[in-house]
């Protein structure tokens, strides 16, 4: 493995770790449930993304052939992170979790088959 790749990998891992850390720090520093959702959906996603790219590069260089598992992990992560954030936020609105921002008026409570 060449020094250039070593440096690239270290940079990716450090960037990834920093973003993951900041995302988690957001959980402690932000002040209500809804703002806390923002850290894990974005900063952490990019952080884990960087770590996965580093992993893909490392295993592609070390072994024969490209390592593409990481592409899948990234894909699934980028699909699921916003969905879980959306569900958490929706549930929080439903349970009337205290919020710094004025919450929107509740949706009509009549049962609807289009709710998802």
């Amino acid at each position: 493995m060449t020094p250039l790749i070593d440096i690239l990998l270290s940079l990716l891992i450090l960037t990834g770790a920093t973003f993951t850390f900041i995302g988690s720090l957001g959980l402690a520093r932000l002040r209500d449930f809804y703002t806390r959702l923002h850290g894990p959906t974005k900063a952490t996603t990019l952080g884990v993304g960087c770590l996965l790219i580093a992993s893909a590069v490392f295993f592609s260089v070390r072994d024969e052939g490209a390592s593409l598992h990481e592409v899948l992990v990234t894909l699934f992560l980028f699909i699921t992170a916003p969905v879980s954030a959306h569900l958490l936020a929706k549930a929080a609105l439903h349970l009337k979790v205290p919020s710094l921002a004025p919450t929107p008026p509740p949706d009509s409570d009549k049962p609807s088959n289009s709710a998802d």
Partner: protein
Amino acid sequence: MRRLLPHPLLSVVLAGLWLLLVNQVSAGHVVLGALLGWLIPLATARFWPEQTRIRHPLALLRYLGILIIDIVRGSFHVAHLILRNPVRLRPSFVPVPLALKTDLAISLLANTISLTPGTVSTRLSTDRRTLIVHTLDTGDADALIAEIKQRYEAPLRQIFEEGSE
């Protein structure tokens, strides 16, 4: 044809996913992937009532490019907001009126909003006309709505819905 192969696009995606999962391309796995890509949409056909058609593949690629750039931009923005004094944040709920109609396009827009700078989609109104978005720090709600509509909704509309209504 429709009954034998209800969602050709989904089939191709599933076969591709299978090849990525096993991490090798050999004749056996291509056949197995094709088989899975054929059987899974068949077995789950009732979950996918509407046929998805991508009308502008190039626009979709450009959209993905914008999305990746915005995810990176969004992460830096949120990281900056977290490290700055959180007391100065101005969070708010912003209702965004939707012009999109198909389920897939609305889901993609909601996901996009959650992945991009300072916004998380929180609720779709029962009549599916408004998406309520929580923002971390808003100065101007109208500018935000305009940006979402112009940057994300317009391309999605072009890709999935143009000419269908």
